[in-house]
């Protein structure tokens, strides 16, 4: 098959297949049937991504596809796609997850009041994400990137009526200081796009700067990054990369831009699963991994500025990791807990990818950097596991009519498949031996241990603290929903078969990944690290934390600190209090003084007054009295004489 046809089908089939439902929003009958068409569109993308995975070349320069049709000739803005190791794998991950969640969504969104909006944005999102994944041209990538932002806004605010408390985040009426810690969907949407845009524009600037300094080239795999950084100098490099990272950090909800991800949980659960755990928020980490892949910072120790950038990313990532995990320990809302743990995982991805700077050694036989591989594989495992957990919590919300964790063992026995998926997803994700993530996490341990040689102990400590806390929070999630939680007030257990299909399929991929770790040649490093004694010790510690939290999910003596964590360590104040206060203060200055002054004073007082004054001046000359006129004439003559005298003195001294 022609490769451009494959790409066209990959990107366009989700969008095209969702146009009918977007247009037919008035017909109830059709909106019940057309979602199947949308899901089919995503299915085509899955097929195409698999086709690319198995048949397309993976090595440069063959894996770079430059479109025969130039977008804007001579500018470097072109349609250039790439199917390297990262893109081809991430493409399959994205398409598969979107497809499973779409199947689940057929059940979950049945009877919703806004199906056309939902499916249009869901599919637009899938296409945008695939574009981000496969594009090599930074401008093209940014088009997809903006699509992610727009779709995220649309889907978080999907239930725009704000009429159902079950879609809120926080407890209505609960005040912490002057702020009510409760956010409706329409607010969640606004907060998401405003935060994301805060990072996107700097990122766009960085892309424009790269464009200017790399000689009009925008292709990630072609830019001579070393020459670019050398040309920019230390300060220039740091400014450029920080601007770029603003986009990645806001998208991936790293500290201090994490708040939007928490309130993004006001969206439907399918959206939380697809956008806010598996793909969109991971796009930030993915793009960072991809850039680092081609920047190859481990060869740049002599270029000033690069090290500072990687130190910043390392610590922002690891601190976000710990922050997210700690915040989750106090949370009772199912989805918000998972959201906090998601940001924690994303932090670990950033951290380990950044560690590649200090890790020159390559995985033998592949030429890939171990730290980047660890980050990417963790992204993959996390995506499937976390998406499963989100889908589970969506089903639980339907079954119990509450978004807070409830459910005892009796309830767990009634929802066997759900319970089993939760157990699998949590144990496979936290890094418990010998399941999937254990091997990846062992690799991560090794990477951070390597930093000890560079004199950095803190990263390893942060990683270990995060891992243990992380294990505890997911165990707590399992325990509070299926084992030791309160008995649910409502139980609505019928139906939901497509939902079960969705998360069973999702969790099953974890087994495939497990198999692949042992089969693939690039992951031998993980297996090797997994047999190291330190990794086994860490694994046992994680196991202990998991079992402990499973046994005792809530510690009442720590409830004060739990509340502090539940309130995200008061970070909402930054978003909802400090920044709006400043903004509205400026707006008040501008409007209250500027505009009022202009309208009330200048427009209605000064201008008419001035005209009145001139008019009166002119009229009072024309009084009709001869004496008056004579005075005027004499006055003018006098003035002329005086001027002439002065002029005479100056001109002819």
């Amino acid at each position, binding site marked *: 098959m022609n490769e451009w046809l494959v790409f066209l089908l990959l990107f366009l089939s989700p969008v095209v297949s969702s146009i009918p439902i977007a247009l037919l929003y008035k017909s109830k009958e059709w909106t019940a049937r057309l979602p199947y068409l949308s899901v089919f569109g995503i299915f085509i993308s899955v097929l195409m991504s698999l086709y690319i995975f198995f048949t397309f070349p993976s090595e440069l320069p063959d894996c770079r596809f430059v479109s025969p049709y130039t977008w804007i000739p001579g500018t470097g803005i072109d349609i250039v796609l790439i199917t390297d190791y990262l893109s081809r794998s991430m493409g399959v991950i994205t398409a598969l997850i979107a497809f499973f969640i779409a199947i689940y969504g057929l059940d979950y969104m049945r009877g919703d009041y806004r199906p056309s909006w939902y499916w249009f944005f869901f599919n637009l999102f899938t296409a945008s994400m695939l574009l981000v994944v496969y594009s090599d041209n930074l401008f093209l990538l940014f088009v997809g990137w903006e699509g992610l932002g727009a779709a995220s806004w649309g889907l978080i605010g999907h239930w725009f009526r704000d009429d159902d408390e079950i879609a809120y985040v926080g407890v209505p009426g609960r005040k912490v200081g002057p702020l009510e810690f409760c956010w409706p969907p329409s607010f969640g949407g606004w907060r998401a796009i*405003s935060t994301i845009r805060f990072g996107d524009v700097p990122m*766009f600037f960085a892309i424009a700067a790269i464009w200017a300094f790399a000689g009009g080239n925008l292709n990630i795999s072609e830019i001579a990054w070393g020459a670019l950084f050398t040309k920019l100098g230390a300060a220039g490099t740091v400014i450029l990369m920080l601007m770029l990272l603003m986009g990645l950090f806001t998208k991936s909800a790293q500290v201090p831009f994490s708040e939007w991800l928490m309130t993004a949980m006001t969206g439907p659960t399918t959206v939380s699963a697809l956008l806010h755990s598996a793909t969109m928020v991971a796009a930030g980490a993915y793009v960072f991994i991809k850039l680092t892949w081609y920047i190859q910072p481990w060869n740049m120790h002599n270029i000033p500025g690069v090290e500072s950038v990687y130190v910043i990313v390392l610590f922002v990532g690891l601190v976000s990791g710990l922050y997210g995990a700690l915040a989750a320990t106090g949370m009772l809302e199912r989805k918000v807990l998972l959201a906090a743990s998601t940001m924690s995982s994303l932090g670990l991805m950033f951290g380990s990818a950044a560690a590649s700077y200090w890790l020159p050694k390559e995985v033998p036989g592949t030429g890939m950097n171990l730290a980047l591989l660890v980050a990417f594989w963790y992204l993959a495992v996390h995506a499937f596991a976390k998406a499963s957990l989100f889908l589970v919590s969506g089903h639980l919300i339907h079954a119990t009519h509450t978004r807070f964790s409830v459910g005892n063992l009796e309830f767990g026995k009634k929802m066997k498949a759900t319970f089993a998926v939760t157990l699998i997803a949590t144990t496979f994700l936290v890094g418990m031996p010998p399941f999937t993530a254990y091997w990846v996490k062992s690799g991560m341990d090794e990477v951070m241990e390597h930093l000890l040689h560079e004199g950095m102990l803190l990263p390893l400590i942060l990683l270990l603290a995060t891992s243990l806390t992380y294990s505890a929070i997911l165990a707590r999630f399992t325990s509070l929903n299926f084992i030791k939680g309160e008995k649910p007030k409502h139980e609505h257990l019928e139906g939901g078969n497509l939902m079960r299909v969705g998360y069973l399929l999702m969790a099953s991929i974890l087994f495939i990944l497990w198999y692949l770790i042992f089969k693939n040649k690039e992951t031998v490093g993980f297996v090797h690290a997994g047999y190291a004694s330190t990794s086994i010790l860490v694994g046992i510690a994680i196991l202990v934390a998991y079992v402990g939290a499973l046994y005792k999910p809530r510690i009442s003596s720590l409830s004060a600190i739990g509340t502090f964590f539940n309130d995200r360590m008061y970070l909402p104040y930054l978003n909802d209090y400090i920044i709006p206060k400043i903004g509205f203060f400026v707006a008040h200055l501008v409007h209250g003084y500027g505009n009022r002054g202009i309208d009330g004073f200048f427009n209605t007082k000064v201008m008419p007054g001035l005209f009145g004054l001139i008019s009166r001046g002119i009229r009072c000359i024309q009084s009709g009295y001869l004496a008056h006129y004579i005075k005027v004439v004499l006055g003018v003559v006098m003035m002329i004489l005086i001027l002439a005298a002065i002029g005479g003195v100056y001109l002819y001294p």
Partner: protein
Amino acid sequence: MLIIPLVAVFVAPLLKPREASHLTALAFLLPFFSILYCIFGGCPREILLMRFSPPIGDIYLNLDFIAHAFGLTICLVSAMVALFALPYMEHRFEEMELDKNVEFRRYIFIYNLYAASMLWLVYSGNLALLYVFMELMLISAFLLIYKYGYGNRRWVGLLYLVWCAIAGVLTLAGFVIMAFNNNTLALNAIMAGGKGVGMVAWAFIFGGMIIELPVVGPHIWLPWAHAEAPTPVSALLSPLTVGLAGYVLLRIALIDYSFIEAYRMPILGYAIFSSLYGGFSVFKQTDFKRLLAYSTVSQMGYMLVALTLGPFGLLGVVIQYMSHAFGKSILFSSAGGIIAVHHGLRDINKMGGLHDSIPAISNAAVVGFLNLGGILTVGMLGEFFILRGVVDTFGIKTSSLGVILGVVFMFILSVWYGFYTLRKVFYGKPKSTERLEISRYLYVPLYVIGIISVLLLFPPLSTVLIHGLDMIPGLGLGVGGVVP
């Protein structure tokens, strides 16, 4: 093809409202397609109309890509707003208790004159001709506000006329100085003559055009005029008319960039301040149309910023004009839709949850704000070129950080106020969930504009258009060129 709108000016008043609106739309769509044909297939660069003795020089039509880009926008928006205006103006005449058929004739005559003069303005190759159409445009807009506006419409009309007359006189003074310096007003002859513009003439034109643009300070007429004009007029006034000041500045800048270079920092600082001022003002507005008017101040700040940023900035001016025109015409029309459907509702505090009753208009407004923010629409290219202009002009150093952050924040602010407004107007708890049946004229034209604005980002439209603009000396990468 450019003659058609002029003919329509006189033919349309003879017809009934519906036919007249359709004719108007057609009269602007035909040039729209012929411009597209020109862009893809090419057409003569210049058409000579008349020869005058110096200092006026040749009167000719200038058919370059800049004119095409502006012309394309004007044709599309004018055609679509003409359709939108049909139910809206009928509603307005009823409200004013005027005879619908008689009044519509008068209205459509002025409307066509207004739109056609804008179209001719951008194709004028001679500054004298350009000035004539500029005045024609101002007077017809004034008449529309004066006759059919809201509130204290006569006062507002006069306010508008006076300020724009000042702008016009200043610009004319600048043109006259140019005429005597160069002995001609034909653009091609001035370019060939190489005498440039001269600082004094530049200062006059600049002074006049920043009143018309407007930036903060002389912007005082704008919130009134945009808010109180009948909505179809706002939907041309804000997107098309005010931005044409940017067009004039662009033309002058392409002849001679020295003024901008000499005063780059003050102009840039002023423009960023103006844009932020407008942006922050938006948050406090309670009248939807007035809110959009302040957003225009903010967006026009973009254009002035872009003007100072070298070749890529100038390319950004063109794209920014298009993107703002598409976005703002959609938004004013959706504000008009709310007025028409909800019986004069303009107060934002009384809105909220409107999406349920008018989903079609609400979704159109989303597209409008996406345009203003430069998300997935042609505005993205505009922002990209402006940012590139910043890099080219100032580099990436700690000393240029102030300018960089200023421009970046300016772009951020548009999305902030845009989505803030969307939430306040359309989302939240609805007052009623009943869906209202509304005329198709009120939303289909908006989607046409929206779709074109998205298509313009992607090939093949952007390929030919941006490439064509790029080929003009002084714009973008340019070839050769006047601008260093």
